[in-house]
């Protein structure tokens, strides 16, 4: 199971956090601090996995953004790596050549996208088209509301 999702910039700034397991605000700050120290310092050729407090954190860098997911010790790391990529590809279709600024200014939309991909810490939909169809439906609905 995925315990949390973190998006960090290369400078260690938080771009998005989603917690599927309970962490207090204080723990969250500590986790982010620890992990940004651990992950941002790693050289590009190394493993995309870090063992951390008995869990594993899988991360992948896109441009200046690090996508990190924390998983259990017995989960499949390569699969999680692809879940991250799946998420990024869908973001890319949603925003159109997604860049970090899109996520900064539209972080709540990124959350909506994430909510369609992961639920309760598990991958809920692996078809990009299904996700896209749902998000479009939501957008249409929201747009209609402003017309009224």
């Amino acid at each position, binding site marked *: 199971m995925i315990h949390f999702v973190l998006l960090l910039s*290369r*400078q260690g700034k*938080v771009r998005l956090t989603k917690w*599927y397991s*309970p962490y207090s*605000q204080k723990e969250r700050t500590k986790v982010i601090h620890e992990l940004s120290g651990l992950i941002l310092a790693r050289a*590009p*050729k*190394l*493993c995309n*996995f870090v*063992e*951390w407090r*008995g869990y594993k954190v899988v991360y992948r860098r*896109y*441009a*200046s953004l690090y996508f990190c997911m924390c998983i259990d010790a017995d989960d*499949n790391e*390569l*699969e999680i*790596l*692809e*879940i991250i*990529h*799946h998420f*990024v*590809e869908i973001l*890319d*279709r949603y*925003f*159109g*050549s*997604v*860049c*970090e*600024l899109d996520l*900064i200014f*539209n972080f709540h939309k990124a*959350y*909506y996208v994430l909510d369609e991909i992961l*639920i*309760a810490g*598990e991958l*809920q*939909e*692996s*078809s*990009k*088209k*299904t996700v*896209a169809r*749902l*998000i*479009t439906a*939501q*957008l*249409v*609905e929201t747009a209609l*509301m*402003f017309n009224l």
Partner: protein
Amino acid sequence: MEQLKTIGRELAMGSQGGAWAGQSKEFLDLVKSIGEARSKAEEDRIILLEIETLRRRIAEPDVPRRRMKDYIIRLVYAEMLGHDASFGYIHAVKMTHDDSLALKRTGYLAVTLFLSDDHDLIILIINTIQKDLRSDNYLIVCAALTAACKLINEETIPAVLPQVVDLLAHPKEAVRKKAVMALHRFYQRSPSSVSHLISNFRKKLCDNDPGVMGASLYPLFDFITEDVNSYKDLVTSFVSVLKQVAERKLPKTYDYHQMPAPFIQIKLLKILALLGSGDKQTSGHIYNVLSDIFRKCETSSNIGNAVLYECICCVSSIYPNAKLMDSAIEATSKFLKSDSHNLKYMGIDSLGRLIKINPDIAEEHQLAVIDCLEDPDDTLKRKTFELLYKMTKSSNVEVIVDRMIDYMISINDNHYKTEIASRCVALAEQFAPSNQWFIQTMNKVFEHAGDLVNVRVAHNLMRLISEGFGEDDEGADSQLRSSAVDSYLRILGEPKLPSLFLQVICWVLGEYGTADGKYAVSYIIGKLCDVTEAHLCNDTVKAYAISAIMKICAFEIAAGRKVEMLPECQSFIDELSASHSTDLQQRAYELQALLSLDSQAVGSVLPLDASCEDIEVDKELSFLNNFVQQSIEMGANPYLPESEQLGMSGVSNFRSPYQQEASSHTLRFEAYELPKPSSIPVIPQASVLTQTRDLVPVPGTTYYRENNLGSKLPTGPEASSADVGIKLRLDGVQKKWGKPTYSSSSSGATSAEKTTNGIGAHQDGIRSQSRDTVYDSRRQQPEVSAEKQRLAASLFSSSASKTEKKPTSGQRMPKGSDANAEKSSVARSVSPGNSEVKTAAPDLLDFGEPVPISAPTIDPFKELEGLIGPAQAVIDNSITTSGVQAPDLMATLYMDTPPSGSRSSSSGLVSEGVYSTDKGSHTAKPTPAVKKGPNLQDALGKDATVRQVGVTPTGNNPNLFRDLLG
């Protein structure tokens, strides 16, 4: 009219890739200023200011709904950056009540991000969720289900459960899927709440929609983990689903990087691994499909390797099959030979799984394993240690544990330090070749990770030293003890020692410090006093120290010699007599009392080397019966066991014998007494004894026992666990230790480093060549047990000195002053008698300086592009070709809904949907490659929007505009 205009602008902005539509200027300014903040302090200041503003504004009456939405999003932002925005939670809750989907979703999003599942405000949302689950609008139902996954806790599950179950039959597949996932979450929260729904999940496995089927695998996986046997009947279904997935019978949209529904495959493989575990018949059903997948897996893509890895896990879990093992081994060796660190990591993990079935396969890969061990990447190194841990035998334990300890010393991560320390201890206990090695290893572990290891470990060590191992070889035992004393006296010179280690040292010095007569009594006592001064120690260590002093004094007195109190010892005793800790006080007074007794009394109180003697304990305290009888006759209240005092049972198990005894002869004359604070009844056994000691003369043995117990374990309540649970696992071990083995010196590790420094320079040149020779030489000797020794030899070989040392170290004490000289000479010239393996040795290991594999740093995104290109093509294909032709039953079930039709109609209705016309290259443009990479049109559009809202990326973060995938 004005409103329409704003909508028009928004929609226009939406068409620019949905960029930044609908946000207020203030929000954009906030984000911008945060982006430009140069320090965390500045960022905090901005956010705090923002929070103040919001606190004021949000409380104003009649805030327009859309403005409120903006506030809430700003609050989410503040909270994301680690600040407290709890004052706004209630407004987010209110927003969930809104009728419009946009606001409701914002509200739900905010509450799921803000509230944990035990927050007080949740109760206010339950009603809304219930209402929304019944909504006609499936999007609202979806939003409510997503929120329910996060917010519903064990108590509130019953409030929504019936509705969620009803939704399993909802016409929209998205709703069914989310309902399944929500129930899965409920199961995790409280298994009993949904356990009656198992049949529903089984039904969902046959859902028309692959997404729902995929979702149903999660709860089924959990159920099967709990109870494998009830689901054996599903094996054939799982296998047939997996087969159809692998044969591409699912709609193309589930393809990912040309793999058919890989995420579903992985989940199915996990389930089959569980079902087939140790079950020959079930495994028989699985073999075929597994070998199919092995054959079909695309090893060039990451996702293909992910599936492959899952296959290996499955093979290693189910009943072994030779053909599949071969495939798994082949895949593993591909992983290990790969250049990618990720794949090497997976390879090491796979190897760890496969050697459980066939330990021999590690042999072929030992060089790859050693490379991984030497890798500068910590993650890979740790994984390799995990593998080594799994393949440790008595023949290679020394090398492996030495390496582990070296690594343990070099890291700061306490969590991992604890783990690796406990692994060292476990290996040492299980495989130690000699007791001396064991003690030296333990010393190292304690010295460097003492405060992190379990207390049990310390007790095991003390037990080992006191009990010895040779049943009848008293001489060896005492030699071990005196060598332990020697090493501890030496170690005490170190500046900083963990308190647990100090406890062990004090205890051993107290028991055996003067046993061989090598050290003077005053010297040992002086050292013990120093311990408490030189090291910042806690009461426990002081207690150990004073008890040790007491024992030494007692041995002296019993032997008829006079003990002279050193001044520093006297001041130590005085200090403890005035201590705040009653335990320390008591020990100090006991010591003083002991000094005045005659030799015979002292001898029976603290007999020499009696720590292993069995002590008979009168658990019934029958010697108190007279006293109790008298007291009762004089009108005292009879004793009530705690369980009756509190009106409950099972307060503490270890006293249950007398509870029963006492209750049998007491009357329950009061139904209920006022409950007492629980701290009163929990009196440790030791202190019960202490109290009674004043009243009745206690036989000497009991007194000693209490004393001994206390000195071993001053923390009262743990006493019982110490007596019961902490047996060193000596049954299997003793035989191993009985063998004649050499005793290695503790300086082995350091010598290893030295050697390689000398050798490192000319390594690379002959590396590959010498590997081949090593490999060949190994092949020539096919005995099974030799394989580990060879690995050990290869591990050893870096420290050729160590192999060399083997025969000699037995004769020489580790203290030998010429040891270093000899080692270095060995390091410089490999002695002529060495075998082929030894010559190759230096190339296998580079302890000192890890040689990085020379590779130009490649931009990882370049690689990424390659990955994305083809995938995109697939997606586009799937969209243009509507309707998938597949002849099978499954295909008709999973028939794709005509995609292009619905898509074009939706984008026709609202031209600014996400995939609006210019973005609609999916459907319109025939060349998918154009879409990827920096799209000029997009970039220009975005740039224009940026200017419009006044945000310019500063030099602080120049990468902001780079496409994530480009």
